[in-house]
């Protein structure tokens, strides 16, 4: 049903190959990030930001979130809010190191 995907013409010109190229290039950058001799915490931050960027591209264009009604995005975003609480709680437990 074309109606389920918005206007039928939107199906024609979606930038799937361009997104693929960006994903491939960013992956190459991630694999070679040590070339930039960054401080450890900066390196980790950059890698996580790049991973988030790639994930957002896949969700928006390959999973079609960009073309869906806006409210649908609240479903995965809601899950992300919940896991942020989980991550914060886990970081809290990690602050005081336990003897191995």
């Amino acid at each position: 049903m074309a109606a389920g995907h918005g206007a039928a013409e939107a199906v024609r010109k979606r930038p799937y190959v361009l997104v693929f190229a960006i994903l491939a290039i960013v992956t190459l950058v991630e694999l070679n990030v040590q070339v930039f001799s960054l401080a450890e915490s900066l390196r980790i931050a950059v890698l996580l930001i790049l991973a988030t960027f790639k994930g957002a591209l896949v969700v928006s264009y390959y999973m079609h979130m960009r073309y869906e009604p806006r409210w649908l995005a609240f479903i995965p975003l809601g899950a992300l809010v919940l896991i942020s609480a989980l991550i914060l709680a886990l970081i809290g437990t990690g602050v005081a190191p336990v003897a191995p």
Partner: protein
Amino acid sequence: MEHAKDAGHGAAPAAHHGSLWPFVLGFGAAIGYAGLVMDLRILGLGVVIFVAGAVGWLRDDMRSPSRADYGTLIAPADVVRVSSRKLATWLFLATEIMFFSAIIGVSWSLRVRSADWATPGEVLNVPLTGLNTFILICSSLTMVEALAAAERGNQKQLKLFLAATLALGITFLSIQGFEYLKLFFEEGLTFTSAPGPINDLYGSTFYIQTGVHGSHVLAGVLAMAYTTIKAFRGGFTKENHEAVELVGLYWHFVDVVWIFLFTIVYLI
């Protein structure tokens, strides 16, 4: 599914979607879970019933059109805009986000509290896994092209791209399996130990994270195999191809999880 008989009529689909098979499958899963904590023979019985339900359901589905269902509201489809099965799939993916977050979060939490963690590339083969990451990204491209082909009604490309996605998924699993064998038997990275002075938790957390992801890829490969078979039998059309989209959503999700997992486990 009874409404397979309506497929040739072009009228609104029959309201009756009843099928016994989801109950059989669910019943088998329940018995299986009970057997996990009670008796492995009960688990075996549950697995048998589950598989019987799955086979029955899939045989019905193979003969059925894959038409999006917008429910029974008065509002027409272009107002509702998200089919009921697509909505359900996204809700399921949200639960999967929670599941993976628990596994990855706990592994990360153990890591920051532990001494003697391995540095990137010290134990794991980062270049090979980088290639594997690229393979999974390729499979997401072929998957979305398969959906685009279905939307255009191009049967040949639909089959081609689904088969390509399946092949790439199998390749990913094969490389992962090869890496596992090497790590486990040659490098000394096991479920309970790590090589040399490296913290033993490195092994445990590696296998739980990548293993849980790998089993999700395996489930995706099985679903992809079924979808590919159905496509080759002409089971999808321009109007009826929802399963291609939904299997695609699951497949892309598994790719997104790997994007994060690869970064956290291999690069950091």
